[in-house]
């Protein structure tokens, strides 16, 4: 077991989704607040209990999002974090919340996200301005950066477009078990290959959805969590690693900082890749899933393509991955990190319905921010894993 006193010290006691898919007429704030209130309600708590608020909203309309949402909820927090590392940031909020809870800086932490990007603009709302040394070549942000990584992985390891497509096919198969998933219905490797090319080798079906959606979780100390209505889901390990911001500054496009974040998060939790029952990876693009499976140690470097093509990550496979349908087929409102956490919580509580992984006790959530830039891993577990 790990020597970290953070292991299992804090637990997720509420988790909720809101505005998944399309939420016409609703602002990003509305969606975030709906999720927040629902998450508190299932925890048996109200806004009056919250004394720490963590979160961010898409774009730059109001970068002080955590202050705004706290104000709108009538909360005057004594601990606030509005850190922005891209879509991964929510998996650092859990770590920060656990640290603040442990130190007695707060009692009840709310973590939120909400976006109306689909119904408001129909496209990704990004807070990243074009980089002067990339803009003249007009890459699509962020798709081309991921496409470049995919091209290099194909070159170095013989990964194929069919293997990339297998990630999207597996995600769709999970989505077909999830009534809340935005994209459902049959999807084959041939369908993915035949869909519109965006930035080669990635087609539109290799790219995540553009949806609305929000999510929130509530965290408190483990000793308090046991007296609340929901089965606690404990934070056993968490770690972040960053290698770059822009893709030109990423040393090896086939190896992400998930190698580092994964090792440290698993060391804190005292677990190994083989121990996980369910894995939720930030699949903004199909290449992400392959890279993260390799970098987190679920298969060896270069074997990710063959691993996913074997059916291992699909329903019925040896390693259930992105059991909600992922960013590729369930929901992707600009920043996806929260959705890895909420899906893991539902799986560990046994509330995932038709897509439930039987006996799920240990889950890995992995967040990605920027263009493979920020990598943050969380290990979550049930009481049995403490």
């Amino acid at each position, binding site marked *: 077991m790990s020597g970290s006193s953070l292991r299992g010290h804090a637990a997720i006691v509420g988790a909720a989704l809101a505005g998944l898919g399309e939420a016409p007429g609703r602002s990003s704030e509305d969606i975030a607040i709906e999720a927040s209130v629902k998450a508190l309600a299932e925890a048996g708590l109200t806004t009056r209990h919250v004394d720490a608020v963590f979160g961010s909203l898409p774009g730059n309309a109001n970068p002080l999002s955590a202050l705004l949402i706290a104000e709108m909820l009538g909360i005057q927090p004594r601990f606030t974090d509005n850190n922005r590392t891209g879509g991964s940031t929510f998996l650092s909020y859990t770590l920060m919340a656990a640290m603040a809870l442990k130190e007695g800086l707060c009692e009840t932490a709310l973590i939120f996200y909400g976006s109306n990007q689909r119904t408001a603009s129909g496209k990704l709302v990004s807070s990243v301005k074009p980089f*002067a*040394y*990339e*803009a*003249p*070549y*007009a*890459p*699509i942000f962020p798709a*081309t950066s991921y*496409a*470049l*990584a*995919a*091209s*290099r992985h194909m*070159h170095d390891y013989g990964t194929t477009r069919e293997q990339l497509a297998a990630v999207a096919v597996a995600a769709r198969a999970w989505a077909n078990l999830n009534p809340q998933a935005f994209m459902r219905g049959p999807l084959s490797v041939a369908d993915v290959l035949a869909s*519109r*090319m*965006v*930035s*080669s*080798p*990635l087609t539109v079906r290799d790219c995540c959805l553009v949806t609305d959606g929000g999510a929130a979780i509530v965290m408190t100390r483990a000793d308090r969590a046991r007296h609340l209505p929901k089965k606690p889901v404990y934070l056993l390990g968490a770690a972040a690693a960053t290698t770059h911001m822009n*893709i*030109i*500054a990423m040393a090896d*496009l086939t190896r992400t900082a998930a190698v580092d974040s994964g090792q440290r998060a698993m060391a804190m939790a005292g677990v190994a890749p083989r121990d996980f029952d369910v894995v939720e990876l930030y699949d903004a693009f199909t290449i992400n899933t392959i890279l993260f499976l390799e970098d987190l140690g679920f298969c060896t470097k270069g074997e990710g393509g063959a691993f996913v093509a074997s059916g291992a990550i699909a329903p019925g496979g040896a390693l259930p991955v992105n059991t909600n349908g992922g960013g590729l087929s369930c929901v992707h409102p600009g920043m996806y990190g929260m959705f890895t956490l909420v899906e893991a919580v539902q799986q560990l509580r046994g509330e995932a319905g038709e897509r439930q992984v039987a006996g799920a006790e240990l889950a890995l959530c992995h967040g990605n921010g920027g263009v493979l830039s920020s990598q943050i891993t969380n290990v979550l577990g049930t009481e049995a894993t403490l």
Partner: protein
Amino acid sequence: MTHPPATGTWTEGPGPDVIFAQHLAAGEFRIQRCAACARHVFYPRLVCNHCGSVDLHWQAPSGRGTVYAVSVVNRSADKGGPYNVVLVDLAEGPRMMGRVDGIANDTVRIGMSVRARVGQGAGGEPCVVFDPLDPDVSTDREGSAR
């Protein structure tokens, strides 16, 4: 600072982005070299990303590079597409984004040798682009990138 600046200009005058752009506007491609660790730096910076020194000096690179990764962006013709976007590892070490001109997009290959020149970006602005470097003719085309 471990390495005080040789010129004293790292705290004064135009920053590295401005200097790079001035060279580019004059048709010149320049990168930085660190006097402390002897490694090259791109994109332009105030501080060496390898060793932390501020003793960076501008120089003309050889212009030679190798394609590290490639994607063809499938935008519509009215948006200038399709066109290729590459990452190129310069002979001096740094990696940069670019575009390979003069050949079909689907023939741009990882590992291909290229040579830099100052061309035009998507908005007509000057930027560094690359031409395929034919190994048969490279020997009589030595010289720095212009």
